[in-house]
């Protein structure tokens, strides 16, 4: 019989591919099978762990030195564990019958799924033949950032610490600011594949329990494959699914979170995200910067009021420019109008197109600046300054007043302290501009009214977005509009903390000691006034 000449290589390759597919299926099937399987004392369990985790190169299976007649097998991922802890704790500690002293945490795993997840999160699984379940040893160690100053919310005075991507670090940053047993971090795990650790954080007794349970309910409803950033949660827990306004505050500053917690809000910390979510929020909290609380309260109040002016500029200024110059020239003072007209000679575009050219140029620069490596930033700013400042005007595309208006608007927009709100304002500005170009001032008015109606309608975890202005709460205005001194007995926001409690006891205004001789005078200070 003649051997059949066949080229097997193609089939072999195919076979290998099929085997791989099979293996993948096998892994998936194995996982689905074992995920909820109780972890007993069955002898084959080690093989299951090898099969579940062994596909990647970083699984380490090791036999620990025997203790008496007992041996233990360790399973861990070399990428997620700290070798130093392992060497000292496991090899040294366990063999000396001293498990609890050397290891950080000890759990018994209930199912295969739990055990595998724990190994994936960096713990060491110990299986002792013959004894059911397994031991988990805390030996997590993976590269993480140190605590760095905030990038988005910088302050002149005040703490320069920001959250980083590590949940434990973030919790410790908060604990250091609020040392109270009533500060609770409720653990949750979200994301089908990411299994991200999430903490719902609030002060028991201060936060409205109904708001907290609503937060719990909404967090439980979050469905995502992977929670890579806190925005995955933020978008799924808002009250209004279709709004440009942020319904949850996002901050990278632990001090802001601490302030929020003491006001009766709750925070959500997400592992792997260097910011915390704070809710419920109102419109006004987005206009407050951490700085306000760290400097003189007159200055703080002034800046706070000024910021509302910036907000108005950022939303309406280009729209007002368009409306006034194309519909209501009689409303512009004569000399200003003449100056505008002089600058408009020979500009081929309508005011709207001019403004859009400038706005879009600016957006291009802004986006490019965000995504450009830092080293190219200077060249971008040179090009930007030349393009915006000179070329567009010299080429007769845009008039100087429009450049000025758009530039002032952009800077006013930067002055809005919270990035998410600034983003919303940016979008609204374009709507206002279109309304102004089509209908003039009535358009601006209607558009602004529509925005206001939407704001009044909006809620964050049931708290009206414009509270305490609408609905009016006179006490709450002290913090929303002004920045009262820290010694004033300003109440907490009424809707957030149901038990009305002043933050500070009344009568704490600082003052020098009263003069001796007067009622209530302190005789120890008599020497100052010379009274006998």
């Amino acid at each position, binding site marked *: 019989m003649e051997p059949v000449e066949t080229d097997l290589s193609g089939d072999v390759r195919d076979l290998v591919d099929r085997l791989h597919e099979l293996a993948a299926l096998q892994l998936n099937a194995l996982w689905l099978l074992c995920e909820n399987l109780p972890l007993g004392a069955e002898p084959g369990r080690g093989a299951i762990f090898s099969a579940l985790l062994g596909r990647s190169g970083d699984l380490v299976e090791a036999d620990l030195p025997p203790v008496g007649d007992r041996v233990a097998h360790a399973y861990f991922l070399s990428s997620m564990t700290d070798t130093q802890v392992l060497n000292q704790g496991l090899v040294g500690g366990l063999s000396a019958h001293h498990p609890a002293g050397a290891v950080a945490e000890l759990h018994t795993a209930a199912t295969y799924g739990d055990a595998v997840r724990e190994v994936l999160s960096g713990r060491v699984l110990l299986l002792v033949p013959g004894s059911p379940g397994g031991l988990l040893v805390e030996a997590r160690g993976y590269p993480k950032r140190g605590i760095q100053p905030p990038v988005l919310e910088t302050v002149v005075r005040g703490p320069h610490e920001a959250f980083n991507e590590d949940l434990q670090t973030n919790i410790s940053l908060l604990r250091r600011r609020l040392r109270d047993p009533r500060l609770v971090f409720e653990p949750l795990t979200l994301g089908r594949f990411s299994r991200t650790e999430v903490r719902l954080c609030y002060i028991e007794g201060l936060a409205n329990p109904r708001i907290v349970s609503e937060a719990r309910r909404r967090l439980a409803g979050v469905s995502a494959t992977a929670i890579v950033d806190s925005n995955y949660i933020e978008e799924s827990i808002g009250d209004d699914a279709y709004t440009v306004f942020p319904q949850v505050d996002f901050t990278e500053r632990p001090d802001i979170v601490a302030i929020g917690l003491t006001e009766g809000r709750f925070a959500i910390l997400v592992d792997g995200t260097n910011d915390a979510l704070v809710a419920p929020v109102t419109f006004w909290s987005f206009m407050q910067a951490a700085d306000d609380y760290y400097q003189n309260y007159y200055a703080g109040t002034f800046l706070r009021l000024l910021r509302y002016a910036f907000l108005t500029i950022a939303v309406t200024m280009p729209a007002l420019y368009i409306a006034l*110059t*194309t*519909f209501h*020239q*009689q409303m512009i003072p*004569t*000399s200003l*109008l*003449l*100056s*505008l*007209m*002089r600058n*408009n*000679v*020979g*500009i081929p575009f*309508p*005011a709207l197109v001019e403004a859009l050219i400038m706005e879009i140029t600016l957006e291009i620069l802004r986006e490019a600046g965000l995504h450009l490596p830092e080293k190219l930033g200077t060249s971008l700013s040179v090009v930007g300054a030349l393009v915006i400042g000179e070329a567009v005007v010299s080429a007769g595309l845009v008039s100087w007043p429009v450049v000025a208006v758009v530039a002032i608007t952009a800077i006013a927009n930067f002055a809005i302290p919270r990035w998410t709100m600034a983003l919303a304002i940016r979008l609204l500005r374009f709507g206002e501009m279109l309304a102004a*170009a*089509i*209908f*003039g001032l009535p*358009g601006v008015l209607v558009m602004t009214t529509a925005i206001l109606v939407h704001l009044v309608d909006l809620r964050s975890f049931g708290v009206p977005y414009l509270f305490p202005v609408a609905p009016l709460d006179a006490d709450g205005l002290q913090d929303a509009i002004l920045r009262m001194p820290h010694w004033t007995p300003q109440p907490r926001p009424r809707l957030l903390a149901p038990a009305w409690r002043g933050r500070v006891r009344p009568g704490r205004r600082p003052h020098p000691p009263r003069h001796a001789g007067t009622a209530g005078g302190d005789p120890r200070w008599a020497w100052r006034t010379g009274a006998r």
Partner: protein
Amino acid sequence: MSARIRRRAAALLALVCLTLVLSGCWDRIELADLDMVSGVAFDAAPNGGFRVTVSIVLPQNLATGGGVGGAGGGSAGPSEAVVSGTGATIGEAITAIGRGLPGHIFWGHTRVVLIGEAAARRGIQPVLDFFLRSPATRLATDLLVVRGEAGPLLQVSPPYRVPGTDVLYEHLRRQREPRALVYEVAQSLLTTSGASLIPEVQVGRPAPGGSAGGGGGSGGATSPTALLFTGAGVLQRGRLVGWLNEDQMRGAMWLLGTARQGTVALRSPQGSVSVHINRVRIHRQAVRLADGSPAVRIRIDAEDVVSQVDAGNPPLGDPRYLLQLSNALAASIRGSADLALAAARAEDVDFLEFGRLVAADQPGIWGRVHGDWPGIFPRLPVVIAVRAHVRQVGNLVRLQ
């Protein structure tokens, strides 16, 4: 509702929304398309028609930087173009102007309205009507009358940093001159007397010798192309019926209560002194005489400072001399007020608005007399009391 119907409804809604957009922009005017009228002049044309002259701002020739532009902007051309049109009515005349212009005539910032003598004598009602009816014009625009033709005045460009119309406007704005705004003159047509004063403006030098009256603004011009306020036109029922010279006009301002400031030169044996009136209080009141007939009482309080010692060595430290000075000033004010009163009586035109005063203060009397006010007015008793106080004599005083 099936998906198809819903889709159609959505499309229909989108179309409806689009029509909103289509209807927009209809009255949009870009700045570049604006022909801004800074001043307008109305003259009489033959057969009862009008010749309307407008000065249009040429923005490209305006000087850079603040201010209202500039005539002498180096190599730049004139900052205003003067265009005129003739028609049987004001509307026709303006349409004729519009035919020659590239953009839209824009009345929103018109600052002065000049009316030629002939047109004013014929009646300014059509001019007022145009301003009152058009939504684009401003009712607080200043009216001025011109002896002769008004149109040529718009072509005068004084050698200052601003065009001629702005010179006039700035003068009026600072209340150096009496003002007659469109709506005020229109209102005066409704009163019984129907009389009003409209400042008069002329091209040329100030009258030699000047006058004792105030109004520091109009003097001192040497250029033959200066625009000067030289008096006022007297209107009755919308028609120009006479003129006041500058002295009479100043007196009328005292009596009307619109005088604010002025400089008066006073001569005395010890020397001559200029005093600047810087604070004026004028109280006008109609009273009822014993026989039930009306009378008018006007009290003028003027406070002033010595602004200049013109000649001699007046004893400014001497209270008696200051009293003398005050009395002289009071007499000077009194004199010009008398001139205005005499003019009003001679022409039998109540431009001093005594009728209005009586109607406001003594409505009972007014109800009785307003029917024959023209007969009563020339014989109306008018009591004028003037008090003047020299408040500051200045530092540069040699005390004896």
